């Protein structure tokens, strides 16, 4: 999704092919002609829609000139305005989910603006924008502002919001498919209603990759209280099939792990054979690893760079600029470069690790060859044998153009709380009017008044039925029926805390130098940020990998981590980022199961992968198409039960909650579980396999479809899933603060864990609105009980059980899966009792 004017054939259509029933202003048609280009039909259609005041969703593959299409109406309108007037308001608001994307677009917009000779001021505003520039942007707004959803909400909370947005003509939302299904999407949909109140006549334009739920996206762009509830849809078909291969390596694929270490030589070879490659990985940790591994074998000194969200802004900009200028041969990158960024002539996309669903894969592949009419070239690199199956399944899904994007989120009450507080900061609101405004947002169209009032109460006084914080309420209603913030501090705190992405506290990493007295001082060069808890575990002298360099931890100074350059260490640590720990669905379960069940199809797989599957057949059982395999085995002092229903992550997560509850009741003391799209693994203190062998009824009891008497609700309230959901809701709604102005990092004893708050709240006000919000969030991670019941019914007749002495080949990928859920039950108590017994035995022996 880029402008790619120079050298791009994306825009080069022979003039004769253009159906010219939409009129471009002369200035623009001349420019197209001068360049020897012609506009795409969909670009003209979008322009025409916009002129008629129609909101439009444009769905088009990469390279189809989607961004120019989005900006064309705005540029045409700005070109035609009267000269000499100093605008008080923004003309166009461009919103993208990524900071990097906004910067990229600014660079790409410069070209047509200069080349046509337009007098248009374009600026970017992201979390990285310095405070001084932000102030100026409000005082003297640019014509076009490129920004992110959080920044839009912040601007709307500004007292001058009405002036700033009063004359807004266009809103362009890029990568709508990525924003809309998230809480950020809900925040943005609320922001749109507010923008609509400031500037009722603006035209909204959504740009999206191909999705399953087009109607929902069309509705997202439009006020649901207007007569026409859908934006117009313009769809551009993909013209050519992408060219995707799975990398085959000389080295055998490992059974587990995500480093792709065995394929580095081949990856390097592929980079060498292409002009410019993007190497996508799934986590920041992988990015650091792959980057380091490539440089170890980079005999030719190819310019290979690293780009991920934790690196310092300056460093990221440098890399982005180098890429735009064609100075790089490859970039190892995470999702920060995932969405439509185009900085050069990328002719190969390498995807390391599981492709995580066909829609996501297709979007990534779209990064190469931004030429609409040429095939994209991509290389899939599985990091282990299971991923090899996933890659094979993904090829099939892409060939069948299968879309697996998720449905939009709706009715998140924590996000609504954040929005209400923001509107109050901007000067206040009438509750009736705000309610009407809120329900015009697609995500909140079904919000009832009672819930709205409870969220308002939450924001104002905490929402506590028995005891309200009246004296120091955050919001107060005036005699004019307008709700306002009670104190400036409230607004300040809101600005510090806004956002719907929950991240751990990050600490800045800086290089230090040794002063005359031998002490290490901060020198100023910022490397980036690492997570709080990783930093806390560092001991001076520890080395770790950061930004592709091995650095040595020296000290903490003023809440910063000071490091020095280290000589190559044999085993530097790699920072883990919780952002990278998020479990991702692959949506490929059905296809993977089919491959496993059909040994004939194994010929497509690398030899070691088919060997591995045969090995599973020998050591355990290879489940046939309708079979539901359950394995039990001991491993490292714990007892495992691994189940393979192939029903998708949601079903498995719910099954994990149910089964641990039933294991707890059978006194088998479960400790935790983990699941992915293919199955789930549960571990416990007691030997579950032995219990099943002794009494076969145990298994049928565990998997019985009748859930009466399971008391699942109470168990769920205790679960890590609910506790996590509560924490997120508490932060987003502002109950727990992320940071306070000028406050130093606190000692642990002062931090009130969200668990304590959760427990107290649950005991004294179980119907509190935040608990309701948390339950709704948890429901996104699980199936409802009716559907779980259906799943159990389907599985129950086909269970095959295998009690093993050690882990099976298939189970390895499962028990190493990320995103473990802890069980809070007797199991933990049993662990503590065991540890105590060890301690006492040791103490006793030393006593003798």
């Amino acid at each position, binding site marked *: 999704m880029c402008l790619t004017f120079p050298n791009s054939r994306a825009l080069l259509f022979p003039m004769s092919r253009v159906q010219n029933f939409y009129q471009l202003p002369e200035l623009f048609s001349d420019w197209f002609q001068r360049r020897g280009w012609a506009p795409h039909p969909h670009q003209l259609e979008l322009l025409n829609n916009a002129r008629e005041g129609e909101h439009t969703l444009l769905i088009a593959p990469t390279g189809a000139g989607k961004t120019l299409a989005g900006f064309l109406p705005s540029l045409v309108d700005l070109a035609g305005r009267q000269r000499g007037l100093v605008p008080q308001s923004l003309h166009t608001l461009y919103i993208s989910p990524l900071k990097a994307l906004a910067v990229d677009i600014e660079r790409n917009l410069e070209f047509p603006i200069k080349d046509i000779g337009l007098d248009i001021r374009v600026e970017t505003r992201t979390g990285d924008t310095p405070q001084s520039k932000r102030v100026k942007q409000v005082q003297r707004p640019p014509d076009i502002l490129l920004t992110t959803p959080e920044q839009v909400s912040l601007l709307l909370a500004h007292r001058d919001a009405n002036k700033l947005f009063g004359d807004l003509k266009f809103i362009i939302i890029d990568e709508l498919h990525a924003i809309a299904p998230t809480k950020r999407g809900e925040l943005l949909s609320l922001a749109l209603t507010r923008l609509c109140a400031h500037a009722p006549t603006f035209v909204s334009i959504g740009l999206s990759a191909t999705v399953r739920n087009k109607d929902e996206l069309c509705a997202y762009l439009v006020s649901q209280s207007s007569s026409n509830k859908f934006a117009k849809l313009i769809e551009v078909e993909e013209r050519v099939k992408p060219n995707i291969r799975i990398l085959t390596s000389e080295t055998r694929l490992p059974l587990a792990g995500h480093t792709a270490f065995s394929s580095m030589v081949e990856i390097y070879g592929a980079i060498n054979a292409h002009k410019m490659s993007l190497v996508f990985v799934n986590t920041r940790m992988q990015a650091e690893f792959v980057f380091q591994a490539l440089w170890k074998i980079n005999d030719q000194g190819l310019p290979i760079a690293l780009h991920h969200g934790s690196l310092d802004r300056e460093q990221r900009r440098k890399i982005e600029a180098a890429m735009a200028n064609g100075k790089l041969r490859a970039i190892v990158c995470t999702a920060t470069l995932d969405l439509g960024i185009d900085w050069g002539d990328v002719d190969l996309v390498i995807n390391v690790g599981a492709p995580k669903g066909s829609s996501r894969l297709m979007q990534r592949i779209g990064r190469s060859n931004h030429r609409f009419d040429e095939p994209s070239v991509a290389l899939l690199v599985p990091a282990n044998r299971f991923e090899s199956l996933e890659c094979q399944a993904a090829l099939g899904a892409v060939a069948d153009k299968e879309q697996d994007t998720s449905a939009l989120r709706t009715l998140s009450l924590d996000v609504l709380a954040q929005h209400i507080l923001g509107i109050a900061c901007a000067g206040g609101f009438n509750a009736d009017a705000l309610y009407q405004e809120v329900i015009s947002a697609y995500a909140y169209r079904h919000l009832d008044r009672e819930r709205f009032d409870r969220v308002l109460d939450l924001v104002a006084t*905490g929402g506590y039925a028995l005891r309200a*914080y009246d004296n120091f309420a955050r919001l107060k209603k005036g005699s004019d029926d307008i709700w306002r913030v009670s104190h400036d501090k409230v607004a300040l705190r809101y600005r510090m805390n806004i956002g719907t992405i929950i991240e751990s506290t990050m600490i800045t990493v800086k290089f230090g130098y040794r002063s005359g007295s031998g002490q290490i001082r901060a020198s100023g060069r910022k490397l980036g940020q690492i997570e709080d808890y990783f930093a806390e575990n560092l001991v001076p002298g520890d080395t770790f990998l950061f930004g592709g360099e091995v650095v040595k931890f020296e000290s903490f100074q003023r809440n910063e981590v000071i490091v020095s350059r280290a000589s190559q260490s044999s085993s530097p640590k790699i920072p883990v980022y919780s952002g990278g720990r998020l479990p991702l669905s692959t949506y490929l379960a059905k296809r993977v199961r089919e491959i496993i069940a059909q040994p004939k199809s194994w010929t497509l797989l690398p030899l070691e992968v088919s060997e591995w599957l045969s090995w599973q057949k020998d050591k355990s059982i290879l489940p046939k198409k309708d079979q539901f395999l359950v394995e039990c085995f001991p491993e490292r002092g714990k007892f495992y039960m691994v189940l393979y229903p192939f029903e998708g992550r949601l079903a498995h997560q719910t099954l994990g909650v149910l089964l641990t509850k039933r294991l707890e009741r059978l006194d088998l003391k479960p400790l935790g579980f983990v699941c992915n799209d293919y199955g789930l693994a549960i571990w416990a203190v007691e030997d579950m396999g032995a219990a099943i062998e002794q009494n076969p009824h145990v298994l049928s009891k565990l998997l019985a479809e009748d859930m009466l008497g399971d008391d699942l609700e109470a168990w769920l309230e205790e679960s890590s899933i609910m506790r996590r959901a509560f924490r997120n809701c508490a932060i987003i709604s502002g109950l727990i603060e992320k940071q306070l102005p000028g406050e130093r990092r606190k000692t642990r004893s002062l931090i*009130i864990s969200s668990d*304590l*708050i959760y427990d107290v709240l649950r005991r004294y006000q179980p119907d509190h609105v935040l608990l309701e919000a948390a339950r709704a969030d948890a429901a996104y991670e699980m199936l409802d009980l009716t559907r779980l019941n259906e799943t159990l019914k389907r599985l129950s007749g086909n269970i095959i059980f295998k009690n093993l002495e050690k882990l099976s080949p298939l189970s390895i990928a499962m028990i190493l899966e990320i995103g473990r859920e802890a069980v809070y039950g007797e199991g933990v108590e049993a662990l503590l009792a065991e540890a105590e017994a060890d301690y006492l035995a040791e*103490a006793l022996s030393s*006593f003798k």
Partner: protein
Amino acid sequence: MRPHQDSLFHIGHLAIQMDRSGALYLPQHKIMIVADLHFEKATTLHEKRGSALPPFDSRDTLIRLQNIIKKYQPDQFICLGDTWHDSRGPSRMQREDRDILRNIITNCQTNFIIGNHDESILEVDGLSFYSEIIIDGVVFRHEPVENENLPQICGHLHPVAKVKLKGRVIRRRCFYLSKMQCVLPAMGALSGGLNCLDSIYKGFMSTEDRRVVILGRDRLYNLGVKSLLAD
């Protein structure tokens, strides 16, 4: 070193019983000891910072107190400091909560020790505050003192122990004891915790006979310091 089979230990001649609620009981004297109740923490934070945490923490803590009293029927009570989260706490406490507290105080002789959070409170229900209390040669005070020759029992630090057992990380409130010292866990419903391996403990804890006693669901667990993890 003597193994510790149960929750009873001795400092000098003083027998001390640990309870899984985080309280101590002196059976020879029928005295109950609790630390860091931090009453009205939520409302204090609301006044100071505008936060709106659930204002039910005092009630929750009071119910914990009632349960311990019911269990041990002590003659006396010692609150080891930071009973209120700030000095205006008593005036903010709700009537029903004040009644519960008054009821406890009337039925059981209560001794408040001054903590850093409530040091400017002069009296509550006619009861004055002590800086420390000595029983059988053992000093009871809020904040531990370095270079102290007498054995001391204190609160203030909110000790928590973190262990990793079979891959599972467990972080819980605990008693932290050695031959000469015992630090009580905080009893307040919204009190956070400070890891036992924090360097601050090194200033006063003797190394002899050092261990933690973790509060479990139904019982206490003794663990050596060797097995603990830092935060």
